[in-house]
């Protein structure tokens, strides 16, 4: 599993960090970023709801 974020689309809503805290966080400019170590995915089931929760479809989960 890979998690990708399109930071150019992100509108800073914070839905991702609220849905799966610990996996998604904010950088100093309050833009979304993955907590280091989670690029290759996580067991946390909550991440699967993030693509739907994001208001601008900036988050994708690729099951490879």
């Amino acid at each position, binding site marked *: 599993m890979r998690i990708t974020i399109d930071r150019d689309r992100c*509108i*800073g*809503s*914070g839905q991702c*960090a*609220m849905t799966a805290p610990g996996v998604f966080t*904010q950088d*100093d*400019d*309050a*833009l979304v970023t993955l907590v280091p170590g989670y690029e290759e995915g996580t067991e946390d089931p909550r991440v699967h*709801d993030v693509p*739907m*929760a994001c*208001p*601008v*479809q900036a988050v994708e989960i690729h099951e490879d």
Partner: protein
Amino acid sequence: MTKTEIRRPGEPVPSFPQDRTCPYQPPKAYTEWRGDAPLTQVTLFDGRPAWLITGHAEGRALLADPRLSSDWGHPAFPVVVRRTEDRAGLAFPLIGVDDPLHARQRRMLIPSFGVKRMNAIRPRLQSLVDRLVDDMLAKGPVADLVSAFALPVPSMAICELLGVPYDDHDFFEESSRNFVGAATSAEADAAFAELYKYLHGLVVKKQAEPQDGLLDDLIARQLEEGGLDHNEVVMIAFVLLVAGHETTVNAISLGALALMQHPEQIEVLLEDPGAVSRVVDELLRFTSVSDYMVRMAKEDIEVGGTTIKAGDAVVVSITLMNRDAKAYEDPDVFDARRHARHHVGFGHGIHQCLGQNLARAELEIALSTLFTRIPGLRPAVPLDEVPIKAGHDAQGPVELPVTW
């Protein structure tokens, strides 16, 4: 008959919006519109036909669709509130512009609403809320929960956020209420002029003596570097004020009212501090303080077998999307244990509320403190005697007498 004809020929097209009778339940007519189709036809006050989107999944897809425009500056942009008719054609930053301009403006503001800023504001919100409860307890019942509690919280929050000096709070609060609550466009224009003048002066003052707030950040990062001009900074401040004040006042007072009418849900709120944010989300879904959002189609769009034509007025019903039985089980039940995932109380798509994390902080602190510190808090009048706002405004009580 094609599926496009949602209404039989000759059948009257209902008007939109309509007033609620119960403060937190949709007007009876709205509930009749949530049939199988995800949209229905309505008429705006000026006779213009509009598509009202009622389906949760379809509404979310539309709100994320760039073929729908939020360009308030377009001469044909639909008008829902009669008093704003004269302002049609005036471009408001953020909420009233499309991408790419929207993205440029929004991006500048994201840092001011980040977790760091919100965490810095929380303790100050908490001490204000504590002070307001102290005052209510000292004076004793009966109190008006709107003026004694729900109003000062967002007012202070926005002053903190923007960096408005404390001495100016009273003026600021009064003129913003005059603007949002104006009965005529002349009144609204006068309040707008007053606020514009104040904010203009404030920006000039801040250029000379920077402090710590959103406006100071904008001035340092954008105005000085030429990314924004003076008028844009003032208009952004204005939009934040208008978008963030009345909505939150209503969310606090209507949220408190819904809780008081369902005392068993107050127990859920208080039993676990970790539950507060979930209860706030369910309240946002259930009360739908912002009842609708307005758009205009830029191109033809197919929705559930119906074609919305380029140029058509589209009104997205937050209330009905949040009560769609396909998305929420028993949608008309307020259930504080529910995970109200994907509700659209703050909208969806690129315009989803910029201030939602501030609003959440205000609601969480205000409601949990209120019911922790005043056990037995309840309305002092029957529900049907609570005066409420008109259907086109943010939904909530005008006044809410409470006792304990």
